[in-house]
């Protein structure tokens, strides 16, 4: 009796978990699909109306580090937004890595205001922005506004 109740509860939890997990997986998959169609794997918007060469260089640098899994970047005339994901085993050193990358980017692009983050949420947001630029939906003022929004988000601390 007791055991059976227990099993039922465990089953319910597993089912709820499973249901949620599946939904997430499907969502992610569909997101990946759109990325394949819209953007190349470079992490920058090649077809954007604003020149994205600084962003490309930034992505190339960040990806060349061996503690980085993936990177995306967007730039306007004054701002450079770089988001990246740290390899899991290196996440212990997140603070140092963030600082190193930020300082290096500052040296590489002295004319730009640098916003860089290793946060997953910022990564998602930046990727979305790259997609929007790639499809030429967005002009510079709108991009600037979004970058500002992402910047504020990245400065939120716990």
């Amino acid at each position, binding site marked *: 009796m007791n055991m059976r109740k227990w099993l039922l509860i465990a089953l319910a939890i597993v089912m709820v978990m499973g249901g949620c997990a599946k939904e997430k997986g499907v969502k992610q998959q569909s997101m990946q699909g759109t990325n394949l169609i819209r953007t190349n794997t470079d992490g920058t918007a090649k077809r954007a109306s604003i020149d994205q060469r600084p962003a490309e260089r930034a992505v190339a640098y960040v990806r060349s580090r061996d503690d980085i899994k993936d990177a995306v970047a967007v730039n306007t005339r004054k701002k450079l937004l770089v988001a990246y994901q740290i390899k*899991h085993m290196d*996440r*212990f050193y*997140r*603070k140092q890595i963030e600082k190193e990358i930020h300082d290096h980017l500052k040296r590489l692009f002295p004319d730009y205001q640098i916003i860089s983050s290793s946060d*997953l949420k910022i990564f998602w947001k930046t990727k979305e922005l790259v997609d929007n630029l790639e499809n030429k939906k967005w002009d510079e003022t709108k991009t600037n506004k979004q970058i500002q929004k992402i910047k504020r988000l990245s400065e939120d*601390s*716990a």
Partner: protein
Amino acid sequence: MLATFFWAFVVGGLICVIGQILMDVFKLTPAHTLTILVVAGAILDGFGLYEPLIDFAGAGATIPITSFGNSLVHGALQEADRHGIIGVLTGMFEVTSAGISAAIVFGFIGALLFRPKG
């Protein structure tokens, strides 16, 4: 993302095992065990060791009660940075408020909704 789930499981599980060992091997009551873990979390954050663990294990480090001590210290240090030594006192619950206020609010709601059993 899968790696985060895996390490959240492992790290969270291990912290619970430490708690179990304190209870079984050192024969402490649950209250003593939790108290020790909270104090341990506070001390670890003092040495700057807890934050990297959160970066690494995500919820595996924020869900166990040790993170309560960590966030208390964190709030205090943040305020101390801004307002000097008095911030230690005023900033303590700045970050932690979520856990305690949630416990208070939901505790009261629970008391309203549910009836005691047996």
